[in-house]
């Protein structure tokens, strides 16, 4: 690397030796130069170096005489490249012939190295200096070696130096000298300083593995094919076919059967759709169940307890089928309702009365014809507390949930989702819905039903096309009528409705039982006022029901152990019965105005006939196996002399009433037995008048 400018060389090697001006430095640099570049360009150094060695002559050197040595041979060095071709011809289109090209590139490049030196007066050097913030006087020209400033502080070890270029080794020394003399100068790093490091990792051990599969099994087959063999084979086959044809003719029926059987099998295996055999399997299930429970079916139809004749008045209940569904085992029966059209079908609403054990619920339909498995199953996300089947359209089922929703299921529709369901937007109750009841269709022939809830609202729901439209009928309040005081002036405390019933004849009249034990007689038309309030019970009214025959009489029951019978025109009860346990439900019989049944939490069914005994039940019978089981609901079948009772373990038990419990008034001899509702009304009226007379007389 020829360096023409001493000035630059010095400045690089010294690094930061201050140099005032290009003119003044010449002395200094020349002296320094001698130190550094001894042996390179001074003659003394060369002599000293050559003295120590004897000249060796190559053996094949030409021996020349003195004269020959003295003769001068002139050689001229030219700039021509001896390797450059001289006979290049190119085709000239102009002259249409090949022409030698006169100009040949004579330059040959043997080595190129970009220098890292800068002239200190050059623009780039100035820019660098400005960048580093150094004063112009300190003519430090540093090119691209800044990153190497972190060079190890310890002097380079000889081993390291050994790997360096000789010139670099020399460079280092003056550098260290300079640092000794002038310690303030920052150390100039040198770009040739490097060290080699290497390491070797452990190689993973190699392992060979191989396996061989067994070749597929082979076998050898040999045969000969020629015309006569082929002919024989065909002839044989034809003979066989003929024989089989004869056989077929002999037993065609059997074969046909086989084929049809096979076809059946095929169709069964081909279609995994179980729907095809759905109906058949249903019939089968019923047949099997009726065979198994044949004795129960016989009892249901024909058994009359003969011992009743000797018991005078009292009657018994004969347990028939027990209905239970495995998936609803943990739930308690919260609602029962017979289908009015199909008298063997009834609906069971499953939920939970326990506040802390709320979960999902289930709506199931059982038929008396199949006690083993429900006809319909609708799982619900919230527990069911009440339900009602529409009287005319028996496929419509209104359901009230613990979460305050009401829904309508359509048994005709496929799927387990209700066809209508109230949401938070569409007037859902904020508390459990305790009772729902279908009403006659409104003037636009829309189906509608009512619901009552603990949030104190009685709401009418109308099924319009595909939505449920709600109308608040009444808001129950504690202190009498809601209309007391101006609206909004005081927040009337809410009374929680727990049950209601609509009058059988007078369309607008209905009763609402509340959690406080009061029963309010209300009208659909007056939303702000009660027609009457009865101080009925000391605890929540569990059920309130109008008599099926007598238009004035209704019954109520409560957890305060009592069942009371009322004349709605008088606000004291006509009858009061203490059943010695919380009464879950009460129901009037559909065949007599004076018969009703009640269930209590101790697992007993109480059946009363006021016509026979005004003071005591004519039948008190525990009907559950375990003592802890509580009975929750009871319903009379509208036609057959049976009742169904539900308990808190999810069981529904059907019971047959013995003849004494459905006794008609004895007819006098020769007289025709009077029948019809008038008789029933008269019977009740007679009883009531007996009670009324003394009362009125006392008043």
């Amino acid at each position: 690397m020829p360096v023409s400018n001493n000035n630059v060389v010095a400045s690089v090697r010294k690094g930061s030796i201050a140099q005032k001006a290009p003119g003044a430095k010449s002395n200094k640099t020349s002296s320094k130069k001698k130190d550094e570049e001894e042996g390179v360009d001074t003659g003394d150094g060369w002599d000293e170096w050559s003295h120590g060695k004897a000249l060796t002559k190559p053996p094949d050197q030409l021996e020349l005489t003195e004269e020959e040595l003295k003769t001068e041979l002139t050689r001229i060095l030219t700039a021509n490249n001896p390797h450059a071709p001289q006979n290049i011809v190119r085709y000239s289109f102009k002259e249409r012939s090949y022409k030698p090209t006169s100009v040949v590139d004579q330059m040959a490049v043997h080595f190129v190295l970009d220098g890292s030196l800068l002239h200190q007066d050059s623009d780039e050097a100035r820019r660098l200096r400005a960048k580093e913030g150094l004063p112009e006087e300190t003519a430090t020209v540093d090119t691209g070696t800044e990153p190497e400033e972190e060079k190890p502080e310890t002097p380079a070890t000889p081993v390291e130096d050994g790997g360096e270029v000789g010139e670099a080794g020399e460079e280092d020394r003056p550098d260290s000298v300079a640092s000794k003399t002038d310690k303030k100068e920052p150390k100039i790093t040198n770009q040739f300083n490097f060290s080699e490091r290497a390491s070797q990792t452990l190689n993973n051990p190699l392992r060979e593995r191989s396996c061989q599969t067994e070749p597929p099994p082979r076998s050898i087959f040999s045969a000969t094919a020629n015309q006569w063999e082929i002919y024989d084979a065909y002839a044989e086959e034809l003979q066989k076919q003929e024989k089989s044809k004869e056989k077929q003719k002999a037993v065609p029926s059997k074969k046909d059967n086989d084929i049809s059987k096979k076809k059946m099998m095929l169709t069964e295996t081909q279609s995994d759709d179980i729907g095809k055999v759905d109906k058949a399997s249903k019939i089968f299930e019923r047949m099997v169940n009726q065979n198994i429970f044949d004795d129960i079916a016989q009892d249901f139809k024909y058994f009359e307890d003969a011992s009743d004749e000797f018991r005078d008045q009292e009657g018994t209940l004969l347990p028939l089928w027990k209905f239970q569904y495995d998936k609803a085992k943990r739930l308690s029966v919260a609602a029962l309702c017979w289908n009015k059209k199909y008298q063997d079908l009834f609906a069971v609403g499953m939920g939970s009365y326990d506040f802390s054990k709320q979960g999902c619920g289930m709506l199931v339909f059982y038929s008396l014809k199949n006690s083993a498995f429900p006809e319909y199953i609708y799982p619900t996300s919230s527990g069911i507390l009440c339900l009602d089947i529409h009287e005319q359209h028996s496929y419509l089922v209104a359901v009230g949930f613990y979460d305050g929703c009401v829904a309508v299921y359509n048994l005709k529709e496929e799927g387990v989702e209700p066809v209508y369901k109230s949401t938070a937007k569409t007037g859902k109750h904020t508390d459990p819905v305790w009772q729902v009841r279908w009403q006659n269709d409104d003037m636009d022939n829309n189906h509608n039903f009512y619901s009552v809830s603990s949030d104190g609202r009685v709401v009418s729901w109308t099924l319009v096309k595909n939505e449920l439209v709600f109308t608040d009928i009444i808001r129950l309040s504690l202190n009498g009528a809601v209309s007391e005081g101006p609206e909004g002036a005081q927040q009337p405390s809410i009374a929680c409705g727990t049950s209601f019933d609509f009058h059988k004849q007078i369309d607008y009249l209905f009763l609402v039982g509340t959690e406080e034990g009061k029963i309010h007689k209300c009208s659909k038309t007056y939303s702000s006022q009660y027609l009457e309030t009865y101080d009925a019970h000391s605890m929540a009214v569990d059920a309130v029901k109008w008599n099926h025959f007598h238009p004035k009489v209704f019954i109520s029951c409560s957890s305060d152990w009592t069942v009371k019978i009322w004349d709605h025109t008088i606000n004291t009860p006509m009858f009061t019965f203490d059943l010695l346990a919380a009464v879950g439900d009460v129901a009037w019989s559909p065949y007599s105005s004076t018969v009703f049944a009640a269930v209590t939490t101790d697992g007993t069914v109480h059946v009363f006939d006021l016509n026979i005994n005004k003071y005591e039940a004519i039948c008190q019978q525990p009907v559950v196996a375990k003592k802890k089981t509580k009975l929750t609901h009871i319903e009379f079948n509208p036609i057959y002399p049976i009742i169904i009772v539900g308990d808190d373990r999810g069981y529904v038990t059907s019971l047959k009433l013995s003849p004494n419990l459905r006794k008609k008034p004895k007819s006098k001899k020769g007289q025709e037995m009077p029948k019809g509702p008038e008789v029933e009304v008269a019977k009740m009226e007679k009883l009531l008048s007996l009670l009324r007379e003394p009362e009125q007389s006392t008043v």
Partner: protein
Amino acid sequence: MAGTGEGKKEEADYKRLHSFPLIRHTDMPEEMRVETMELCVTACEKFATNNESAAKMIKESMDKKFGSSWHVVIGEGFGFEVTHEVKNLLYMFFGGSLAVCVWKCS
């Protein structure tokens, strides 16, 4: 004349009666057997005059369907002894005068 007429009739009868494919020997599973048989019938009917083309067609289709390597022999008279992979052999007659042997051995 009558004799020859009868002979002709018999021949026609024979052709008519013996046109169906008749499996002489096979160890293929049901599904494969049916497919192979149908293929052979199709090929022999397509190349009724050229047994080589029929054999080629059968071989190529079988290679495609069931993997290589299949071998097919079609002819009116031949004898053979072959080594085949188990469950991959079909030896059948067809059309009254043709014998077809299809086997796999790779």
